[in-house]
């Protein structure tokens, strides 16, 4: 999952990497005693890049300025996301801005280390300057990465070479130990004496390593609200994302790719899906609990007016699935919308009969299902 900057910096700090002193705030009631030393920078915490250019990173020289920035940013929408929290940290001045990143290289099967003496917001445009950005992929081991950093920094000014080597070594250690997919520090603030501080931190962690990465499990528990999707997957074994709070079509679907495609097609047809879901029918094992959970979440959608069930079952017995579905509906009385079920797979007829007796239309063609969905939306 994509870590918010604050959590990424906390992870770095916990591993001994220097970051600017900072605190996380959720409202404008700031406690002056808790503030880090000024001057400050106020940074909206959303899971997207390009915050600076979107006006979501602002400088402040007084606590009054901090409060006015928080007023402007908290609750606002930036890059399509709602800003719920901001990090206030000490602004670092009198430094150069360099760049370090480590990422998995899925082709060469190694770790790609990238360094640049000049980083900051214009890093993308530097790609046009030969030798401005230096990178190489090596085996996923610390000694190889440390050696590579020395090669990549050859010829740089001594204070930059020293800072980049030290930062690469420390960040590589965190990257490997925490099993990260991406760790980018841009800018890496470098002082004239070669000292350095991670000015920003972009981290993608591996949810699949959760069982052996206690920090990640702890983060999900402590910050459940900020990572509700990952938390939900951990607790319920399925992927669920609200894609449009004003969505009108609740989706009970299985398979990530097919569910994504269905959302794309609904949107292209001018319809408004509420959620993404990969319920994983193969993991239900005769228990309706997960379906009950999902229907409960969908019932929270205030504009949801119809539920579309789309299950292409390679292996799942649809007769059994229909019974679990009926049980789940019975246990979710708060969901009062019509249901259209599109089912393909084994024992379809048993499912059709069973659901027809409960007033649920079953079709096998997705296009036909959408005709029913549109009819319900028009009638509602």
């Amino acid at each position: 999952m994509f870590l918010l900057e604050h959590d990424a910096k906390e992870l770095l700090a916990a591993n001994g990497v220097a970051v600017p002193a900072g605190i996380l705030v959720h409202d404008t009631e700031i406690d002056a005693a808790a503030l880090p030393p000024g001057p400050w920078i106020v940074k909206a915490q959303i899971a997207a890049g390009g915050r600076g250019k979107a006006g979501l990173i602002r400088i402040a020289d007084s606590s009054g300025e901090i409060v006015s920035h928080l007023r402007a940013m908290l609750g606002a929408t930036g890059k399509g996301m709602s800003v719920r929290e901001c990090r206030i940290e000490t602004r670092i001045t009198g430094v150069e801005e360099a760049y370090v990143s480590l990422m998995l290289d899925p082709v060469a099967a190694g770790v790609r280390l990238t360094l640049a003496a000049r980083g900051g917001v214009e890093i993308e445009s530097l790609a046009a300057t030969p030798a401005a950005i230096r990178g190489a992929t090596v085996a996923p081991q610390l000694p190889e990465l440390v050696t590579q950093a020395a090669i990549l920094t050859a010829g740089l000014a001594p204070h930059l070479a020293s800072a980049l080597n030290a930062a690469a070594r420390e960040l590589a250690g965190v990257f490997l130990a925490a099993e990260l997919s991406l760790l980018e520090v841009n800018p890496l603030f470098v002082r004239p004496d070669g000292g350095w501080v991670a000015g920003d931190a972009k981290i993608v962690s591996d949810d699949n390593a959760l069982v052996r990465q206690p920090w990640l499990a702890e983060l999900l528990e402590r910050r459940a609200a900020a990572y509700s999707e990952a938390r939900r997957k951990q607790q319920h074994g399925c992927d669920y994302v609200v894609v449009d709070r004003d969505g009108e079509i609740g989706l009970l679907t299985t398979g990530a790719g097919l569910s994504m495609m269905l959302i794309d097609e609904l949107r292209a047809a001018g319809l408004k899906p509420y959620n993404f879901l990969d319920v994983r029918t193969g993991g239900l094992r005769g228990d309706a609990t997960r379906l009950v959970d999902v229907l409960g979440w969908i019932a929270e959608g205030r504009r949801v007016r119809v539920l579309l069930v789309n299950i292409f079952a390679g292996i799942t017995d649809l007769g059994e699935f229909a019974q679990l579905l009926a049980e789940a509906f019975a246990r979710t009385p708060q969901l009062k919308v019509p249901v259209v079920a599109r089912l393909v797979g084994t024992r379809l007829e048993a499912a059709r009969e069973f659901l027809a007796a409960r007033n649920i239309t079953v079709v096998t063609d997705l296009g036909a299902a959408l005709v029913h969905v549109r009819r319900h939306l028009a009638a509602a």
Partner: protein
Amino acid sequence: MINPRIDRDTRVIVQGITGRAGRMHTRMMRDYGTRIVAGVSPQAGIADVDGVPVFAACRDAVAATGATASVLLIGAEQLLGAIEDAVAAGIKLIVTPTEGMPVHDALAARRLTREAGVTWVGASTPGLAVPGVAKLGFLPEASLAPGPLGLMSKSGTLSYEAGYRLAHHGIGTSVWVGVGGDAVKGTRFAELVPFFAADAQTQALLVIGEIGGNEEEEFAAALTAQRFAKPVFALIAGRSSPEGLTMGHAGALVHGGHGGYAAKKAALEKAGVAVFASLDAMTLGIGRTLGPR
């Protein structure tokens, strides 16, 4: 060159055969025509599963049967170790449907299999198949019909849906490879381009991708480098997905302008690929080129 083509003589073992999924899929693969010659399970006291002999160690199963392919129905945490066992035993084609493999484990498995010259398909793969002949993994029969279209996909379910619709339009598949939706995997789209270029039974190619990573862009570059002469079609899921959130598949993550739909579509179209906006458009478009027959 990676060659995923299997036939009725390909000798296959199942690692993890005594588990719930192991037993069920062993039966389904055999029913389809796959020659399962042995199973592997550390569980003591099980001599066979439905008549398939069970060995405690992978190397014993391979030594006794001459197997060259293995399907691993093993938990995510144990998967890397089981892949190491398969490589050490001399298996040449490894298929791992398991979801949830830690990505640093996948990196290690990719290094290992490449160095050993072993083809690894997965993780998170629904499997591979030569329709009408044999399959390794979960691919459902309703979607498998023999024909001229090569198919590779990140998603299982979206490929089932696509294969099912195409089969109903009289368009079948030559070789079907589910590469899986993980960020680091054993076999990538681009690595199958030489095979599909050379495969005489394949007259056209369908690639089913999704947002995240750069596999589609890499595939487009490989088509151009190969001077791939057969028609190529693509379906890319996730064009309306929000940034910064993983959409079900570990690899399906768009962040800071990386992995987005527009760049994938542009790269594919530049390489001469027909990119379809919907499943219906895909069925019609492929139908115009290949069939129905």
